[in-house]
Every structure is written in structure tokens, then in C-alpha cells.
């Protein structure tokens, strides 16, 4: 839907102000916020599912606990699992990797900073002080997209290592709900990256400036920040809290 809503937008320079509006706001921005409201419910449903299924998997690997490949033994430490009768070779470690995910979380948070700076660059296009490369929209758009791509890289790494540890989307309820939730979020990030890259392309081609372009970037920024806040919730609820 996001695409369809913007669809109306790129029809661009036909001057919004020839049409009467009640609030003086922008159609597309209202639509974006409405859509974000809808997305809140989407992620609430996904996160609820993850939490509801937490601890209900019948086989490992588990998110925070040690497990055993050959039995349903669960423990807080590798030693505890072995003490309970699991052969050392069959011990499964907890799959969630907090240090790695902390890094990717940080990257995504910083991408939001880059995003606001990119918007600021477009808003102040041509103003004194904004002509330097590190204050312009191109640099910050590129940075945002790059950090988004880096986040996706982290996620790809994370998914691959989970699969190596024996957790796929088909393994257990944890696997299904974890991969679906984070994958859904990852897809949002990927769409965002593509969006930012296309904005960057426009910026390179003709420069983003003026009220219409501010709106264009503003909407992309809203989407991007929303994807970021969703990750803030996911990071705490899924990774940190047991």
C-alpha cells in the first residue's frame, strides 16, 4: 500500500494548492500516518504471537536457554544441561546473540539520525551552510541507506548462523515466530532501503529541493523512523527480556 500511496505523490509538480484542503496538510502525509497506525497493529499481532508462543516449543534450539538435540532437556547453562543427562556433543547453545544484535540495533538507531539530517538537508537546500557535503541531503540519504543495508547484513548473518545451529523457520514454534517477526521487519527495512536509494537517485539526477521534495523525503523518513521504533520494541521484547 505504501507504494500505492506514494504513487499519487510522484505525479508531482501539479501544484497541490490549486485544490482546496480542510487542514492545509498533505494528503500523502495523512495517508502515511494512517498506514503507520495500521502497521502498529501488524507488528502488535506479530509480537503477541512471538510472546504467546514463547516457551511452548517442543524441541530446541531455544532463544535464551541451553538445550539438547536428542531430548527436551533445557537448562540455564551448558553444564546444567549436561548434568541433566545430555551428551556433550548434543548440547545446543542459546541462539540469540546479544552482542551482535546490539551492534545492529545501534546501526539502525544511527540511521534514524542520518535520516533526519537528510530531511534537514532537503529542507534547507541552497541555504548558507548547507552547501557543504556533510550537511547535504545526498550524503545523509546515502548514509541512511547504507546503515539500513548494514542492518540487513547483520540480519543475514544472524539468520545464517541460526540455521547452522539448527534453527530454521520449520524447526519449532520459536523458529517460526522468530523468523516471521524479524523477517517481516527485515522486509520493511529492505523496502525502506530501496525507497531511500530511489530518492538518492532523484537527488543525484536533479537535486531534491522545494516543498514537494521535502514532502517526498518527509514521508520516506516517517516510514524509516517507524521501522526503527519497531526494532526498538523488538530488541527489548525479543532479545533482552527472557
Amino acid at each position, binding site marked *: 500500500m505504501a507504494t500505492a500511496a506514494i504513487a499519487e505523490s510522484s505525479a508531482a509538480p501539479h501544484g497541490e*494548492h490549486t485544490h482546496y484542503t480542510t487542514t*492545509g496538510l498533505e494528503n500523502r502525509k*495523512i495517508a502515511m500516518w494512517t498506514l503507520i*497506525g495500521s502497521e502498529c497493529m501488524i507488528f502488535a499481532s506479530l509480537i503477541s504471537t512471538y510472546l504467546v508462543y514463547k516457551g511452548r516449543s517442543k524441541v530446541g534450539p531455544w532463544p535464551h536457554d541451553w538445550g539438547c538435540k536428542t531430548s527436551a532437556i533445557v537448562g540455564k547453562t551448558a553444564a546444567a544441561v549436561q548434568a541433566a543427562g545430555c551428551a556433550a556433543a548434543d548440547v545446543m547453545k542459546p541462539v540469540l546473540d546479544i552482542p551482535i544484535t546490539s551492534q545492529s540495533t545501534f546501526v539502525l538507531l*544511527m540511521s534514524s539520525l542520518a535520516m533526519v539530517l537528510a530531511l534537514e538537508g532537503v529542507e534547507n537546500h541552497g541555504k548558507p551552510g548547507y552547501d557543504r557535503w556533510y550537511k547535504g541531503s545526498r550524503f545523509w540519504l546515502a548514509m541512511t541507506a547504507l546503515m539500513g543495508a548494514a542492518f540487513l547484513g547483520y540480519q543475514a548473518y544472524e539468520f545464517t548462523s541460526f540455521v547452522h545451529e539448527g534453527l530454521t523457520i520449520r524447526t519449532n514454534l520459536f523458529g517460526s515466530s522468530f523468523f516471521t517477526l524479524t523477517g517481516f521487519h527485515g522486509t520493511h527495512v529492505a523496502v525502506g532501503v530501496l525507497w531511500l536509494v530511489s530518492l538518492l537517485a532523484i537527488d543525484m539526477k536533479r537535486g531534491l529541493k522545494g516543498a514537494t521534495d521535502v514532502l517526498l523525503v518527509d514521508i520516506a523518513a516517517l516510514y524509516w523512523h517507524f521501522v526503527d521504533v519497531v526494532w526498538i520494541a523488538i530488541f527489548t521484547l525479543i532479545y533482552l527480556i527472557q
Partner: protein
Amino acid sequence: MSDSAAIVDRAHADHKAHPTWKQYKWVALWLTVITAVEVWVYYTPFRESPLFAPTLLAMSAAKFAIVVMFYMHLKYDHWVFRRLFVGSLVAAMGILMALLFLFSKLKIG
């Protein structure tokens, strides 16, 4: 058609000034600090405390609010947007809490 400039102007007057570069950087710093504290707490014995989850949730909510208010400009923008977002968020949180309660992941009292 000649448009009601008056109304449009009035609406624009509702926009308060955007945050500045400086504010954006402060916000980023706060986000970093809170995240760092979250991760740090995870590796301390506090992790076993019953207060661990509420504390983490509070920090997460703070980050959430900061990004929405400053980076998404909701604090400064038109009330229509605020209502659209807060309304949906309340509904989403309500559904989440209700589901956790219904599946006995959350106990009342």
C-alpha cells in the same frame, strides 16, 4: 481556483519550529546511552531480578517516545497526525496486553 490562503496559513501556524541539528544529535546520544544501559544491564546480576523486565520496558518505551516525538516530529506536527498515531498505538498495545492476558502470559494482580 482561488484558494483559501487564510485557512492554509492558519494550519501552517500550527506547526511549531522543527528541532535543530543540535537537538537531533542530543537525541541520538540519548538513544545510544539508553541502548548501552539496556545491554549492560543484560549482563549484570540484575537480569535475575523481577524488576529487570519492567526496567527494560521503561527504557525501551523511552527510546520509542524519543524517536517518535523528535525524529518523526510528532511533538511539533499537526494534531491530526498525533491523534492518528497515538490512537492506533493505544489500540495495538491494548490488543497485545489483552492477548498476553488471555494466554496467561500476564497475570492480573
